[in-house]
């Protein structure tokens, strides 16, 4: 493996933001812009290095190197390995370098945007903010280039910590700390399963490496081929079980049903943080992990089907909730859940390229939308209710057009980036679904969700930017500076054109080789053996079917999804693109209430925490204080009581003592006499 030259700088990608964290934390107070500069330089450095790595991988090199041994020891693994090493290492292959570029780019733009969003607003605690951003970026970058599952888990957890800190940034309120706690707890619940998965995989295969001959993926494949029994299970079953355990962490972090509830609450954090969490870090981490160990999931059709079904269900489920929200950030939050559902669907049907493609596109257009929402919030003097907005189109053209580009991408309107990736996911789902009924159901849910996506996206756009201003703030918006506009424009361009990376439908129609991302992930330029799309595709055990022919299937799929998206957008247009829109959603009656209440998922989880767990805890406490401690105190009470009775023999009257003495003597004599046979 190439361990020299360019790649020896790879650790710095993550270390730059770590340094920025320390600098901002310790010296932030004394620095101009309160530590923002350190963060901007660090993320810019990371971006630069990531691009260099990207170029190097494009040049046909890959990097897989263990840098530091955490610990090692003896084990008795199920497949016969006798030693295990837990290490920190870097794996730079097409997937991770692509993700590194995305993460560092979004992080950089978020840092820049923060200058306009946080500094300009005179927030307190800015050094803390920038320090936490730095730590967040560090954790995510290190997670992305991790070369083994344990390292990935460790930085996965650190990402969770940072999201906790940043969501709770405004700790003086009551709601922010509560949302932060919820985010950490819900994802922690998922990570519980993830940790069992890590431990199980390590104990089974004696390795946690992602790539190479000694990776757990290879070991699992061998075990399946050899028909080995693992912990009393058939090898494939055990792979399914462990894969699903790891998936628990993914469902938590990527906010899939039923662990999605933390994400809308996480909007309590600064909008910049939401952009970072949703586009490139925390939420992306889950799906990225599935892509990272896709070879493992590819071994288990059950796990894949579950991923696909959960994804499809979440896509639809979240999209319906997004339809009734009034807060612009809430709409975006539910759209995030829904979009990550698509990625899961794509990966679950074996559409590795499609999933990663959507992950990339989503990172750009969702960062754009959140930063756009941040800009709107600045414009609106910190008002987030869409019903108080309106008419911002002419007053803030830059914000409007960039936001519109993001919205078109999100809704999946041709030719914006979201269309290409979403279409590819749905196509992959369709061709597998024609053979597998479960996947067909997932596909159907994904398809219906397209309509809702188009609808809520344009409902948001129309309510925010079109019509007449509906409040004083909307009539007289606060101006936004360059620090806001530059990131928006950058992301706006990216959201529009990044779809060019993989124009699969056009490539198929015209038979030209323009599916660059597929080539990229397939190792045309350079990849690590075993981690290519090609090989994943061969492992995935799904049959594929077509309606008459491949092209026709593709055209039907694309047509239907585009038609649904346009239908959604058009419905929103008729309902809301009017000077004085009204709340049509309330006409839904009971359904509206259910949707507004998020299907009572929050209530359910709060009930689990407060209605079930806390009473149990209190009962345990009562049991502890009464029965267990009662027994302990009872023993001492009995001793005390007993001695208080016995001590009464000591009357203090000498005569009694003497009498006792005599009586005792006589008694002793009698006893001895009886036993000695004197009588």
């Amino acid at each position, binding site marked *: 493996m190439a361990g020299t030259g360019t790649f020896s700088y790879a650790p710095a990608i993550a270390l730059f933001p770590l340094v920025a964290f320390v600098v901002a934390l310790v010296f932030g107070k004394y620095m101009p812009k309160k530590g923002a500069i350190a963060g901007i330089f660090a993320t810019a450095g990371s971006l630069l290095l990531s691009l260099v790595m990207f170029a190097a991988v494009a040049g046909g090199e890959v990097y897989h190197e263990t840098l530091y*041994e*955490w*610990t090692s*020891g*003896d*084990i*008795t*693994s*199920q497949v016969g390995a006798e030693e295990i090493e837990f290490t920190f290492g870097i794996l730079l292959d097409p997937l991770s370098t692509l993700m590194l570029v995305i993460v560092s780019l979004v992080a950089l733009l978020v840092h820049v945007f923060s200058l306009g969003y946080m500094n300009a607003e005179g927030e307190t605690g800015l050094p803390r903010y920038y320090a936490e951003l730095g730590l967040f970026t560090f954790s995510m970058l290190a997670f992305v280039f991790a070369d083994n599952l*344990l390292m990935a*888990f*460790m*930085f996965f*957890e*650190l990402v969770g*910590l940072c999201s906790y800190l940043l969501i*709770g940034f405004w*700790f*003086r*309120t*009551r709601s*922010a*700390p*509560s949302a*932060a*706690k919820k985010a*950490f*707890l819900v994802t*922690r*619940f998922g990570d*519980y399963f993830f*940790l*069992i998965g890590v*431990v*199980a995989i*390590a*104990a*089974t295969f004696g390795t946690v490496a992602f790539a190479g001959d000694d990776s757990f993926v290879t070991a699992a494949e061998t075990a399946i081929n050899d028909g080995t029994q693992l*912990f009393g299970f058939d090898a494939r079953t055990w792979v399914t079980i462990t894969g699903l355990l790891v998936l628990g962490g993914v469902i938590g972090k990527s906010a899939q049903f039923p662990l999605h509830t933390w994400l809308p609450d996480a909007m309590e954090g600064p909008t910049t943080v939401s952009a970072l969490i949703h586009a490139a870090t925390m939420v992306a981490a889950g799906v990225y992990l599935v892509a990272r160990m896709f070879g493992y999931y590819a071994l288990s059709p059950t796990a894949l089907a579950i991923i696909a079904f959960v994804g499809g269900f979440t896509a639809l489920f979240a999209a319906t909730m997004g339809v009734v929200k009034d807060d612009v950030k809430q709409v975006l939050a539910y759209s995030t859940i829904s979009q990550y559902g698509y990625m899961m669907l794509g990966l679950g049907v074996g559409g590795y390229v499609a999933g990663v493609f959507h992950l990339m596109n989503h990172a750009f257009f969702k960062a754009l939308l959140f930063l756009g929402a941040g800009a709107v919030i600045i414009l609106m003097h910190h008002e987030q209710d869409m019903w108080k907005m309106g008419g911002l189109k002419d007053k803030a053209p830059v914000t409007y057009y960039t936001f519109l580009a993001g919205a078109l991408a999100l809704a999946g309107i041709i030719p914006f980036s979201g269309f290409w990736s979403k279409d590819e996911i749905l196509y992959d789902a369709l061709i597998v679904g024609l053979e597998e009924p479960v996947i067909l159901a997932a596909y159907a849910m994904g398809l219906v969700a397209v309509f809702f996506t188009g609808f809520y996206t344009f409902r948001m756009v129309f309510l925010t930017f079109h019509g007449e201003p509906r409040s004083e703030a909307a009539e007289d918006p606060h101006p936004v500076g360059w620090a806001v506009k530059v990131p928006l424009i950058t992301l706006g361009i990216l959201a529009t054109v990044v779809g060019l990376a993989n124009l699969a439908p056009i490539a198929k129609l015209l038979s030209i080789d323009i599916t660059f991302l597929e080539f990229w992930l397939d190792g045309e330029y350079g990849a690590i053996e075993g981690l290519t799309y090609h090989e994943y595709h061969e492992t995935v055990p799904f049959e594929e079917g077509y309606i008459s022919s491949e092209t026709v299937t593709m055209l039907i799929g694309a047509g239907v999804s585009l038609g649904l998206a346009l239908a959604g957008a058009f419905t929103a247009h008729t309902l809301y693109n009017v000077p004085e829109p009204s709340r049509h959603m309330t006409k839904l009656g009971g359904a509206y209430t259910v949707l507004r209440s998020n299907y009572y998922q929050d209530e359910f989880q709060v009930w689990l*925490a407060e209605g079930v*767990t*806390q009473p*149990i*805890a*209190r009962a*345990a*406490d009562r049991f*502890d204080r009464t029965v*267990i*401690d009662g027994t*302990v105190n009872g023993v*001492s009470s009995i001793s005390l009581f007993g001695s208080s009775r016995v001590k009464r023999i000591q009357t203090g009257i000498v005569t009694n003592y003497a009498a006792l003495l005599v009586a005792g003597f006589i008694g002793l004599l009698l006893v001895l006499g009886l036993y000695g046979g004197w009588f």
Partner: protein
Amino acid sequence: MMIEILIAVALVGALVTFVAPNRIAGKLAFAISLVPAVLSLWMFTAFDGSGNALLDGTLAFESQYEWLQLGEYSISWFVGLDGISIPLVVLTTILVSLAIMSSWTPIDDRESQFYGLVLFIEANLIGVFSALDFFLWFIFWEAVLIPMYLLIGIWGGPRRKYAAIKFFVYTNVASLVMFGAFIALVFGLGDSVTSFALPEIATAMLNGGPDGFLGLEGTTLTSVVFVAMFLGFAVKVPVVPFHTWLPDAHVEAPTPASVLLAGVLLKMGTYALLRFNFTMFPGQVETYAVPIAAIAVISVIYGAMLALAQTDLKRIVAYSSVSSMGYVILGLIAYTQFGVGGATFQMVSHGFISGLMFMAVGVIYNATHTRLVTDMSGMADRMPVAVGILIAGAFGYMGLPLMSGFFGEFTIFFGAFGAEQLPYSQVFTSLAMFGIVIVAGYLLFALQRTVFGPYELETDYEVGRAPLHDVVPMFVLLGIIILLGVAPDLIFEMITDAVDPILNGGEL
């Protein structure tokens, strides 16, 4: 000679501090306590032992002198360190120094006696972790109780007498059970032992065990002794259901005493379990694997549930100690290199982390004079640094990666998951791991209510930042915790080196 010097410095220091004026006692005790701390760190770097102290290992800083002849048995001054004990000695000396510094603020009465007792505890704790003769070890073991009893009973909270007596009587009765059992074992071993030196007894145990005593068969005697000693140590650990003295003692104890109690005294229990039960009775460990693992899991989950129901910060941390020590038992019963090694690592790691947590809670208490979660809110507004460290410590407790707690828990889970001699090990491990969710639950709830939110606290004075000498010890601890989390092999390698002979039945 090094160990004797450590103990002597602490003992003489205790006497000197006892007679020193109150005014300077704190600073003086701190200065004295630095000597063992620095010396033990030097010993740590110069450590050249290998293998297990009881099983033919090479001891570091060994010394042995004949002391008494008791019938056929000789008792000697026999001390030495192996890879298991040296991290614990370092933990003790460092934690004592930092605890002394952290008590400068809260202790304002009879200082010289207070600090003298703390140093006296230190001497005995070092003795417990280094003694290799049963009688010597037992003297140190019991002598730890007296100063701790006084620390709680004199400088404690409102119910200090109840707590102190409960602590003393409970642990003392447990010691009696253990002592009786061990003496029976030694007599049962008959001619094969001629002294109370632990290595000799361990060898005799592994070479066939006792012939019988008091009419009991050899195997029965071994089982009875194993169970009795397990119960004796279980109280000290403490393991559910013998844990109820702990929250009372913690709540009433002054902060530095809590730090030592949670940080070091609890480790005596698990250390003794490892040294006696898990080294000398490999057969019984296998026989009783399932019940002990069940107790461990119950301790983890039940302790965590209890912590969830508390509103007193110290009680929360106290119950979470029960939960954390459950992990240690799980690691021990796994009987694999990662399990037992991880358990030993977790002892050290939990010592530092719980010490940090008690200090942080103490600092907040110094400022607010309340520990009730319901009484305060938004403390981060007034004491950002102390609260920042509290948050860091809480996440350490939750097992955040790159902090020592994660390494301990991960290795325990990993070692226990694949444990061959523990039936249903996967089920036990998965159940115990749910503790990491509950611990996050109660700590985050507590943080949310106390340090976040709008600032609310009813006082007739202004709550300001904590003084430097309150914060410095916490920074030091945090540094150690992160260091051990990033580079666990600093101690894990020597631990596994000392653990391996146990697992191989005495063979290297």
